[in-house]
């Protein structure tokens, strides 16, 4: 029997040591104590809440003694589950250290038409289509709208949410730009979940928010943090600094600032309701110094987001990362390589939820063709992250002996027994010999991805919501529309 045996169940990946995580967190605590953050405008409600937490409030500048941050870290849960829309377990996401899953992103203003590929404005119906396609893809675990609709500002995220929840069982991550919008979305989500109590037991969506960089917060988004905490809506505090623009040009400096920023929202959330579900989030990248954009394809994005995953784990907080996006204007070679690069690194980093698959043009354009292509990559990534099992059975020395020198394994029982589970099978990537590939139509990956998308668009039906629920949503929307029209 083998003793003193250390096993890697999966590949192992670290960017920062625990000591480095500790250094960064200590520096972040110091920033919060010395510099603090600032509210963009006055708010008695938020100032009072923060004073209550023990923070030092001087006008709009808030500083946090480290015990205040520590208190918040102590009550914040490290583990939570987000369920399918009606509390279903089948599509639930288990959020616990080093458990990964992948999903889409939101906020793009333009959309590649799923059928024609035309670059156009994003419409309300697209949210339904995106949800339906995401519902069909095996490697997409949570859904975001891939866009943003040009409608009344008080309805924009509401329509997207209503369309998505009607077209997928999988958990949804949504923007909710104002307090009013969260309230309407929450009405819809709780209606589908079966009531407020049911929702608290089995939350079916998450709200995506963001502190502003560097180190400031507008009042309305901050009130949204409080609302989510009080209603136990899992809230993602996703900071999006650009190195050299809104955060230090050195990567460690950006990590320190980002940690400080998400901790300010954590304190607010935990003070409002200790134990409220809260995720650290990051779209950390460089400012491209030619174009001024936050680069989604930059290697630094993957490096920073992975390091941030380790810092979150060090602090005992769940983490929402970024991958599967590109700065390319097309679903082309650049898109393929940038998306693959980031999806692999994010998976290795052990981030709990990895978002933004499907983003082209640095988050300006959403593309379902790209999502379909990247879904294939996620499958490959997951297969590699399974690692290699080394057991007497898997080492197969008896088989090696049986087959013998010069033999072949194709007809051996062992091959039959194992190849289906041991190997990864592409659905999109092509391995045919040239003649066969030519005979099949000489198709590129892009073309095959489009065909797969067409099949999904034509054939996939998401399970529909019960009629009373659909009616309830309809009523909620009508009320929201009336209210919006009045303003």
């Amino acid at each position, binding site marked *: 029997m083998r003793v003193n045996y250390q096993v890697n169940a999966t590949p192992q990946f670290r960017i920062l040591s625990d000591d480095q995580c500790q250094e960064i967190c200590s520096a972040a605590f110091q920033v919060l104590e010395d510099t603090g953050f600032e509210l*963009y405008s006055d708010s008695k409600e938020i100032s009072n809440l923060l004073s209550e937490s023990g923070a030092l409030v001087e006008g709009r500048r808030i500083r946090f003694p480290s015990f205040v941050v520590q208190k918040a870290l102590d009550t914040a849960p490290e583990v939570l589950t987000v369920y399918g829309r009606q509390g279903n377990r089948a599509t639930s996401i288990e959020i616990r250290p080093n458990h990964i899953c992948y999903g889409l992103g939101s*906020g793009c*203003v*333009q959309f590649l038409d799923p059928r024609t590929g035309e670059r156009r404005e994003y419409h309300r119906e697209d949210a339904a289509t995106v949800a339906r396609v995401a519902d069909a893809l095996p490697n997409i675990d949570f859904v975001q709208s891939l866009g*943003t609709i*040009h409608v009344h*500002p008080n309805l*924009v995220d509401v329509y997207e949410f209503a369309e998505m929840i009607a077209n997928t069982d999988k958990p949804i991550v949504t923007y909710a*730009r104002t307090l009013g919008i969260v309230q309407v979305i929450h009405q819809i989500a709780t209606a589908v979940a079966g009531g407020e109590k049911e929702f608290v037991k089995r939350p079916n969506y998450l709200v995506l928010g963001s502190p*502003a960089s560097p180190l400031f917060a*507008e009042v309305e988004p901050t009130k949204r943090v409080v609302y989510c905490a009080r209603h136990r809506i899992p809230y993602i505090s996703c900071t999006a600094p650009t190195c*050299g*623009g*809104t955060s230090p040009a050195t990567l460690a400096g950006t990590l320190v600032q980002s940690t400080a920023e998400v901790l300010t929202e954590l304190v607010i959330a935990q003070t409002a309701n200790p134990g409220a579900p809260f995720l650290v989030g990051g779209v950390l990248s460089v*400012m491209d*110094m*030619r*174009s*001024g*954009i936050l680069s989604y394809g930059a290697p630094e994005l993957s490096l920073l987001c992975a390091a941030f995953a380790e810092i979150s784990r060090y602090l005992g907080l769940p983490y929402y990362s970024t991958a599967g996006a590109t700065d390319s204007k097309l679903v082309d070679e650049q898109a393929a390589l940038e998306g693959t690069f980031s999806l692999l690194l994010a998976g290795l980093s052990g981030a709990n939820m990895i978002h933004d698959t499907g983003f082209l043009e640095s988050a*300006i354009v959403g593309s379902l063709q790209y999502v379909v292509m990247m879904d294939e990559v996620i499958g490959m990534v997951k297969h590699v992250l399974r690692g290699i099992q080394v057991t007497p059975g898997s080492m197969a020395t008896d088989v090696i002996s049986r087959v013998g020198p010069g033999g072949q394994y194709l007809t051996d029982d062992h091959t039959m027994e194992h190849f289906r589970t041991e190997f990864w099978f592409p659905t999109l990537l092509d391995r045919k010999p040239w003649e066969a590939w030519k005979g099949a139509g000489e198709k590129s990956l892009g073309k095959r991805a489009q065909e797969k998308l067409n099949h999904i668009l034509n054939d996939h039906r998401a399970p529909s919501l019960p009629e009373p629920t659909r009616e309830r949503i309809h009523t909620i929307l009508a009320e929201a529309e009336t209210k919006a029209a009045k303003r």
Partner: protein
Amino acid sequence: MSNILVRMSEAVIEGDVDAVVGLTEQALNEGLSPKDILDNGLVSGMDHVGIEFKEGNMFIPEVLLSAKVMHASLDILGPLFAETGTRMVGKVIIGTTQGDLHDIGKNLVGMMMRGAGFEVFDLGTDVAADVFVEAVREKTPDIVGISALLTTTMAGMHDTIEALQEAGLRDQVKVMVGGAPVTSGFAQKIGADGYAPDAPTAVDMAKEFVSA
């Protein structure tokens, strides 16, 4: 061209703040007019920076440093323009639209416009339509530039254009818009005079507006 002006251009291009102050004083002592110094010492340097930037050979921090150098010289020359009644290339008011706090892009545009010889008044961020209108009334600019990074605040650009219309000021200015979610289609829809996808293009467009 006189040697001192060439050296000033170089100071701008290389981002040498210390050198430019001395060179400005020296140029004035040599009897060169503030306008000459501006056009052939400073703007010529920034023009080169603009070209290098567009071609991807110079980066944003370097452009901003060059702009800083130019401002250091303008601090000395500015009061002298007023004395001699010299006009700058044009007058621009810029700001980020109401409800939006993003300003890096706007700042870059402002700096590059100054670099091209425009007089720029930056109203900052979260600028309401009536604030734009009041600034136009007060400063009588040639151009109003509005920036937005959020789709939810873009409507504010339309509000500002309408407010200018209502105040009877719309015909006196050219309105340019920009920002990540903004498109030329949107600019047309809201009645703007132009859309620029980046700072160098914004400067070129501004130059066209004032020379028309």
